[in-house]
């Protein structure tokens, strides 16, 4: 047996976890129709303790998804509508001079960041200074004000949304802050059949009533189980090669990366793929991560971490398209079949 060997989750435990996650996912699918892939990605990131940046046009259900999550998970939920005049203390909280028992003293009033689930709506409309106030909270899950550090509630998730159009008066998120998001989930438009279903089932567009699907303890159990999902060496090697190939100076980088990518993904990208793939594996009822999970989460985990050249915009290349090219160029296993053999389907 391999010296690194560890025991896998039992089939019963995995099945139980899958049932619970499926309950959550099904409820979300009731709220957001026709967005199964997006829901899977968000739930996978949630199970892996990751923050998610949702990008899509207005009215596609971004905010509704987050609100539904908060209801289903019995989480404390706060929403911040980011505007250009929003201040950092509006997020983190501030000390206010108060009179208490005849004495005046500064009392800390926690900001909306002190919650389990924070919806940062239209995050790109706030100034960079305000956006930066989220950096420490997202990475270290704590807030420091007036020299005092306060730990945020556990779990703490940031689900931010941003609008890819109406860019006037917006402040694009800096790379450092984008890197804090495990996934950037792009929400595409809805199909005709989904629209038809929405019209029939929702008179005023209001979502269905939801009951909590997962308790806090169940969620913590799921978090623990996700960390136990096995990541085989060969799969880890695949992730490493993928991330290495995203750098234009890498020997394994495909031509499209050399042409259009200025800077490749940080190691956080590889960690995000691994963690997201673990969450997705558990969602699929597997005790281990496979190549397929890696391929599935590579785009939301890597696309926003690539710094593209201006030529990429001119040629119509975005991060997701480049990640697709990466997935085609980098084989999942380092040493493939001999050329004299042909796999049969």
């Amino acid at each position, binding site marked *: 047996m391999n010296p690194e060997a560890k025991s*896998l989750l039992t089939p019963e435990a995995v099945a139980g976890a899958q049932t619970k996650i499926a309950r959550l996912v099904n409820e979300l699918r009731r709220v957001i129709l026709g967005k199964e892939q997006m829901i899977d990605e968000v739930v996978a990131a949630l199970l892996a303790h990751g923050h998610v940046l949702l990008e899509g046009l207005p009215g596609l259900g971004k905010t509704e998804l987050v609100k539904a999550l908060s209801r289903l998970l019995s989480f404390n939920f706060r929403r911040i509508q980011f505007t250009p005049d929003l201040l950092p203390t509006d997020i983190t909280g501030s000390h206010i001079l108060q009179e208490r028992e005849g004495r005046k003293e500064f009392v800390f009033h926690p900001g909306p960041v002190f919650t389990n689930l924070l919806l940062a709506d239209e995050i790109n409309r706030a100034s960079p200074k305000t956006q930066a106030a989220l950096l420490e909270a997202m990475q270290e899950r704590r807030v420091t004000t007036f020299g005092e550090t306060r730990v945020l509630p556990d779990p703490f998730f940031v689900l931010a949304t941003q609008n890819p159009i109406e860019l006037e008066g917006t402040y694009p998120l800096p790379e450092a802050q984008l890197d804090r998001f495990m996934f950037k989930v792009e929400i595409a438009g809805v199909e005709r059949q989904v629209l038809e279903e929405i019209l029939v089932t929702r008179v005023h567009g209001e979502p269905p009533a939801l009951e909590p699907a997962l308790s806090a303890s169940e969620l913590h159990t799921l978090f623990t189980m996700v960390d136990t999902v096995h990541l085989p060496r060969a799969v880890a090697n695949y992730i490493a090669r993928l991330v290495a190939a995203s750098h234009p100076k890498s020997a394994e980088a495909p031509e499209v990366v050399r042409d259009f990518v200025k800077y490749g993904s940080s190691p956080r990208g590889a960690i995000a793929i691994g963690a997201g793939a673990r969450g997705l594996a558990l969602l699929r009822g597997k005790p281990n991560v496979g190549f397929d999970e890696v391929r599935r989460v590579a785009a939301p985990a890597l696309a926003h971490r690539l710094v593209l050249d201006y030529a990429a915009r001119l040629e119509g290349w975005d991060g997701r398209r480049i990640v697709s090219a990466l997935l085609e160029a980098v084989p999942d*296993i380092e040493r493939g079949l001999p050329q*004299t053999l042909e796999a049969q389907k």
Partner: protein
Amino acid sequence: MNAFQASVRSAMRRFARRVAVGHFLEIWPLWAVPSLLLAGLIALVCRMFFPSAAEILVWLWLAPVVAIFPAFIICIARAYRPSEIVALADSLDGGQGLLLTLLETGDPAWTGAPALENFSRRPLPRLRPRRLLWKFLPAAAFLLAALLVPQRVPAGPGNTILANDIAEDLKTTLAELTKRDLITPAEEKKLEEEIERIRKSALERVDSSSWEAADALREKLAANLSEKHDALKWAQESLARYAAASAQGVADNPAHESDIEEIARAIETLSRSGLLADAPADLRRLLGGSSTATSGNVRLATDARSLRKLADSLSTYLAKRSEGLRDLSRLGKESGWFDPSEYPQFSYDRGPDGDGDPGSGGLNRGRGDAPLTWGKESLPFDRFKAVALPPGAVRSPDDWAPVAVLPGAPKASPEIGAQAPAQDYAGTAGQAAWRRTLVPRHRSAVKKYFENSPSAR
């Protein structure tokens, strides 16, 4: 791989074997193709410079077989590790990662997973021999082309063949003469040395002198035979005359004495030519002892009875030797001499040009197997045609007119004197011609007929 179920383990072993075969077939051409090219190169070099290797060139087709060994060693060195085999299997099975996980963890709880059962039912990767064949074709074609190149025989070793051929003919003749006791051991040794000298000379260089030397030796043998034949014939004739005289009863006739003398001289000649060397014992005794047969000192008996007995015995012996010599009359002329009767297909009846095809030879166009290059011959209608010249007209004596009238006797004209060297050359031109064409051994024979001195004529 013990973490897998028996069915999965068995499928994994089959898969590993198939991958190993595919891996070998991937590496083998990398060695086999260069080996075929190298074999083709070797074949080409042998075709150009090493005729002796022609018979073993076909074994070069085994070059790809030899290349199996280095390919096998490299296959072992670069063999797929078990983890790589399982990763391959997992990737082909959809990238579920469960095979890899079980290999690493060995957790028995998941050995019965449906994904593993799917793998055991999965068909093995298919071998693609056509890809292999395409790699081999150009190299194999090169080797085939190299083997089809005609073998080039260098000019050097040809001398050996020709020299041995010349010597072999002479040795055959010599052996025949020895077999029939027509030459003495001393002559045989001398002839053998001469044949060897001719052979060595031909080894260094084969030209007309080599053939001439061989012809000269053959001629010498023929002359020796002819001499023996003459001596034998003379002896037979003298014995016949003696027998005729004895039959007429003219024993006291002085002419009869001269016949006996002639017989004695003929026997001496026979003895010198070696024809009496193997004479029977009774004949030797009648000739006056064994030394007579070799030394030539003949002491004939004086009484008529002994003489008649000697004549009878000698006649019988000579008749036997005569038959042997008659069989060998052509000996020494069989090889190297052109005999038109040996080539009936080139008879004059078919025209001077043989059958008219270039290269087929003809009696007046060299040997039949010689390459003939005639260039572009004129077509019949292009050939020179006879053109009748205008008839000549005798000039009238009236046209002559004296240029000058000089007093006194006419003197030698300087123009006539200037022609003298040409006349001298004309006198020796014939001599120069035969000197160039006759071989040295013939010069002495014909020299006397061309001597300028009056005494020689």
